[in-house]
C-alpha cells in the first residue's frame, strides 16, 4: 500500500474533518506568507506576547504529540524518549545552517536544505531504534527509548567540538524574523505558520488513521497476535508508525531551531517528553484533536499558574515547588479518575482491561 493510497484511499472514518483541517491549515499558511513576504505589519498588545510565545511552543509540541499519539494511541508503542527525535532534528538543522556558532559545528548551508535533512536524520534514528527494539515487550521499548534519549543528551553535553556542549549551537538563521516587517509581525507570522503546519499535520494524521492502514494499527494495539494471524506483518506496520512519528518530531525540531535561532541541551530535556505524555493522556490517546486539547490544557495550566503567583500568600520560592506539585497531582488524578483522558474513549484504549 503506497502512502498515497493510505491517505486518500478511504476516508470514511475521518469524514470531512481531514478536509476541514487541510483548508484551515492552508489558510493559515497563506496568512503567514502574506505577513512574511509583504511589508504588511501587525501590532499586538505587549501583554499578549507571553501567550503568543507559549502558543508557538504549543503548536511545535503539537507536532510531537501527534506523532506520539500515532505511536502510542494507535499502535500501542510506548516511546519514552520522544524528545530525542525532536532534538536530533533540531541539532541537524542547526549544525547545517548555523553561521559562526560560538562552539560546535556550523556549516552555514541554506536552511531550506537543512530542514529536510533534519527530518531524514530523525527518521533514520527512528528506524535504527525501531529495528532494534520494536520486537521487545512494550515496557522494554519504553526503557530503550528513554536510554536513547539520555545517551544523546550526554553526547550533546560532552562533545563540545561537535554539538557545542551546554552552550549549544548558536547563530542559526531565523528566516521568518529576517523577512517579516518587524518583530511583532514575525511573532504572529511564526505562530500562524507553525499553527498551519500543525493543523495540516492533524489533517494528514486524521486521513492516515482513518484509512484501512489506521485500522490495522488499532488492531495491533488491541491484540497483536490476532492481527498477525490474519496475515498482517505487524512488525512493518509498527516500524512505519514509529518512523513517521520520529520524522514528524524531527520536523518539529527543525522548525524550532529556525524559530529560536539556537539550540542547546536545555531545550531538549526529559521534561519535554513528560509534558507531551501528560498532554496526550489528559486529552485522551488515539484521538488527534483530544491529544492537542490535552496538551493545550497542561501547557495553559503551567502558564496560568505563573500568573497565580501574585494572588497566592506564599513566597516565590515556595510557589515554584507548589506549581510542580500541582502538575504532578493533576497527572496522578487524571490517570486515576479519567484513565482514558478527558475526550478519550475507554473502550477504544482498552484501559479498563
Amino acid at each position: 500500500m503506497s502512502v498515497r493510497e493510505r491517505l486518500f484511499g478511504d476516508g470514511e472514518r475521518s469524514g470531512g474533518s481531514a478536509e476541514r483541517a487541510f483548508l484551515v491549515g492552508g489558510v493559515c499558511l497563506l496568512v503567514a506568507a502574506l505577513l512574511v513576504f509583504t511589508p504588511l505589519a501587525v501590532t499586538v498588545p505587549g501583554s499578549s506576547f507571553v501567550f503568543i510565545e507559549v502558543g508557538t511552543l504549543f503548536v511545535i509540541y503539537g507536532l510531537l504529540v501527534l506523532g506520539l499519539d500515532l505511536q502510542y494511541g494507535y499502535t500501542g508503542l510506548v516511546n519514552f524518549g520522544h524528545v530525542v527525535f525532536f532534538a536530533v532534528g533540531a541539532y541537524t538543522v542547526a549544525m547545517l545552517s548555523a553561521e559562526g556558532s560560538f562552539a560546535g559545528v556550523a556549516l552555514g548551508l541554506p536552511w531550506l536544505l537543512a530542514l529536510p535533512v533534519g527530518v531524514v536524520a530523525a527518521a533514520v534514528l527512528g528506524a535504527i531504534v525501531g529495528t532494534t527494539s520494536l520486537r521487545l515487550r512494550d515496557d522494554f521499548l519504553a526503557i530503550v527509548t528513554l536510554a536513547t534519549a539520555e545517551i544523546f543528551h550526554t553526547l550533546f553535553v560532552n562533545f563540545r567540538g561537535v554539538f557545542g556542549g551546554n552552550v549549544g549551537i548558536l547563530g542559526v538563521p531565523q528566516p521568518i524574523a529576517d523577512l517579516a516587517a518587524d518583530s511583532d509581525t514575525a511573532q504572529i507570522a511564526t505562530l500562524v505558520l507553525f499553527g498551519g503546519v500543525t493543523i495540516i499535520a492533524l489533517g494528514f494524521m486524521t486521513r492516515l488513521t482513518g484509512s484501512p492502514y489506521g485500522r490495522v494499527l488499532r488492531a495491533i494495539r488491541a491484540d497483536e497476535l490476532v492481527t498477525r494471524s490474519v496475515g498482517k506483518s505487524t512488525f512493518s506496520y509498527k516500524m512505519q508508525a514509529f518512523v513517521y512519528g520520529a520524522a514528524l518530531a524531527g520536523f518539529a525540531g527543525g522548525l524550532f531551531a529556525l524559530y529560536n535561532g539556537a539550540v542547546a541541551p536545555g531545550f531538549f530535556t526529559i521534561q519535554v517528553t513528560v509534558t507531551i505524555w501528560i498532554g496526550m493522556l489528559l486529552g485522551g490517546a488515539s484521538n488527534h484533536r483530544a491529544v492537542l486539547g490535552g496538551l493545550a490544557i497542561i501547557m495553559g495550566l503551567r502558564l496560568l499558574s505563573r500568573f497565580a503567583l501574585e494572588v497566592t500568600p506564599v513566597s516565590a520560592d515556595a510557589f515554584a515547588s507548589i506549581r510542580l506539585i500541582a502538575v504532578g497531582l493533576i497527572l496522578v488524578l487524571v490517570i486515576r479518575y479519567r484513565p482514558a483522558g478527558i475526550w478519550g474513549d475507554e473502550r477504544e484504549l482498552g484501559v479498563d482491561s
Partner: protein
Amino acid sequence: MGLAQNVIFGLVTGSYIAIAAIGFTLIYGIVNMINFAYGEYLTMGAFIGILTVGVLPLPLPLAAVVAMVGGGLISLLLARLFFTPINQTGPVPMLLTSIGLGLVLRNGIRLTAGQSARYFDTEAITFRFDGLPPLSVGSVDLLGGFFVTSEQLIVMGCAVGVFLLVHTLLTRTDVGIAMRAMGDNENLARVRGIDTQRIRDSVWVLAGVLAALAGVLLGIQTNVSAGTGFSQILQILSAAILGGAGSPYGAIAGSYVIGLVLALSTAFLPAGMTGISSAIAFLILIGVLLVKPSGLAGQEVREA
C-alpha cells in the same frame, strides 16, 4: 592505572545500586510497574536518617534502622494511596502515576526541607594495600596497590547482608515463596490461595526498607538534598532491567555490571570522553536487551 583499584570502586558503586535495585525489581515483578518515584523513596529514607541523627540524637546505625522502618511504612502508605487503587489498569498508567508522584514528592521535600544539602557527620578510615606486585599488560596494571575505606567496606557489607536476607526471605519464608510464585504467575498464585494483596503490601514495605537503607548509605557518601535519590533513578532502573526485570538476583548482577562499567569507563576511556561514562551504561543496557531481552538472569533464575 591499577585495575584492582577500579574494580573495588566499581563494586562499591554497584553495592549502592544493588540495594536499591532489588526493591525496584521486586515492585516491577510483583506489582508489575516501573516505579519512577522510587528515587524519592531513597531521598525520604536519607532525610529520616539525618533527622534521627540530628534531632533525637541517635547513633548512625540506629538511625539507619529508624529510616528503614520509616521508609517501609511510607512506601506502604504511598502504595495504598496511589498505586493499589489502580492496580488493574496495566503498567503504563502506573508508570505515569509514579512520574506524577515523583514530582509531588520531590518538590514536597524541597518545600519542607529547603534547598541546601545536609551532611552526615562521619569519619572514614582508609586501609591501604601497597605491597602487591604490579602485573602490567601494556599501560594497564592488573594488580597494583589499592586502598579501601571503612565507609566502602560498610556499603559492601550492607549489600552482602541485604543479599543474604533477601535470599533467605525469598526461599525460606512463606511470604517470600508466595512473592516468587506471584512474580512467575499471578493468576496461578491466586488460584493456589495466595492473598495477592497482602503479598503486594509486603513487597511495598520491603522495597521501602531497601530504598531507605540505600538512601542513608548514599547520604553518608554524598549528601542529603531533595535531588539525592532522583539522580540515581536511571542507574537503578538500568540495573534492574539489565538483570532481567523482576529478578532480584538479576538486579544484583545488573547493578555490579553497571557499577563496574561506570568505574572502568571513567578510568580507561580516551581523554575528553570521561564525562560520557553514564551513557556507556545505557549503551550496555540497550545491547543486552537486544541480545537477550530477558536480561542477564533471564528465565532460569525465576524458575528456580
